[in-house]
């Protein structure tokens, strides 16, 4: 239980001084959402560990060096990085209370997210087409599980983003919507952080001889 001592301002308003220190979260939502993201990070850590263990078991099939098209991955990475800065502009529009700016930048971000998914689906379809589907080898199973889970997260992020656009359009920039935009911002940038791991560990290191 927190104890507090009450004083009064000159005009009679009470002043509350927290005796247990002043660094308490004012609003627990962002902290709670951060904890959710960290639990999500554990899922990705398990998938990364699986890939790390199985990623060199090719079962006489193709290896990463044979399959990965780095220019395509570079374009995809650029798209995701661009979407993180456009989300940043959405946050700035939110801070300026610009409803049109917020919805506009959110839609640009969603469009970039869809581009990312399109390129990823093209890559997956190409791999499956040439017989390098998830059932080919342990390497490809763990590859599709890890990269596919990240792609699913991006898909759900895009859905969330579109729903949020409808909400903002209908109710304007209120406290609840601002909180939702801030949570989605953390989600979106978190996906970027996971993608750094994917393109480094899976694609770049997988392409090394």
């Amino acid at each position: 239980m927190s104890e507090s001592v009450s004083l009064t301002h000159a005009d009679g308003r009470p002043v509350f001084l927290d005796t247990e220190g002043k660094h308490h979260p004012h609003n627990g939502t962002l902290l709670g959402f951060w904890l959710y993201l960290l639990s999500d990070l554990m899922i990705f850590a398990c998938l990364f560990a699986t890939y790390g263990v199985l990623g060199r078991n090719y079962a006489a099939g193709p290896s990463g060096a044979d399959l990965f098209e780095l220019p395509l991955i570079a374009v995809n990475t650029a798209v995701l990085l661009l979407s993180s800065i456009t989300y940043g502009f959405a946050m700035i529009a939110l801070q300026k209370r610009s409803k049109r700016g917020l919805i506009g930048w959110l839609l640009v971000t969603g469009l970039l997210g869809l581009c990312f998914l399109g390129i990823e689906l093209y890559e997956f379809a190409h791999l499956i087409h040439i017989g390098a589907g998830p059932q080919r080898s342990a390497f490809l199973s763990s590859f599709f599980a890890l990269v596919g889970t990240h792609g699913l997260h991006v898909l759900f992020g895009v859905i969330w983003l579109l729903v949020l656009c409808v909400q903002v359009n209908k109710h304007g920039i209120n406290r609840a919507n601002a909180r939702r935009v801030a949570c989605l911002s953390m989600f979106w940038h978190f996906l970027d952080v996971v993608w750094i791991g994917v393109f480094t560990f899976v694609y770049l290191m997988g392409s090394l001889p």
Partner: protein
Amino acid sequence: MTDPSVHGHDEHHDDDGIPHVSVKEYLTGFVLSVVLTAIPFALVMGKAVPNSIVLAVVLLAFAAVQVVVHMVYFLHMNAKSEGGWNALALIFTVVLVVIVLSGSLWVMHHLNSNMMPGAHDMQEMIKNAP
């Protein structure tokens, strides 16, 4: 607390729940992450480093720096946000992630090297067979 100078830079939350962000912060993060992404891709695609192991270590180092850049400039992490609980939860998770990753790789590497005889071991086994 109405005096703006009392508000430290670390307090990202206004009373209306909108985090304080700045264009400069986002642009700095973006430029840094573009550079930190372009260099690893250029190193691998240009085959600049012949030694795979050295290159792998360099790639992991770039990734680690870039994760920190994203945390600081995009996720607005610092030791003070949410009264330090953000940072504490992050440290706890990072410890778990390191245990999961390094533990899995270590155990499975030893399992592979002890359970799967290589070509040399096979020759020895055949030679020593009764």
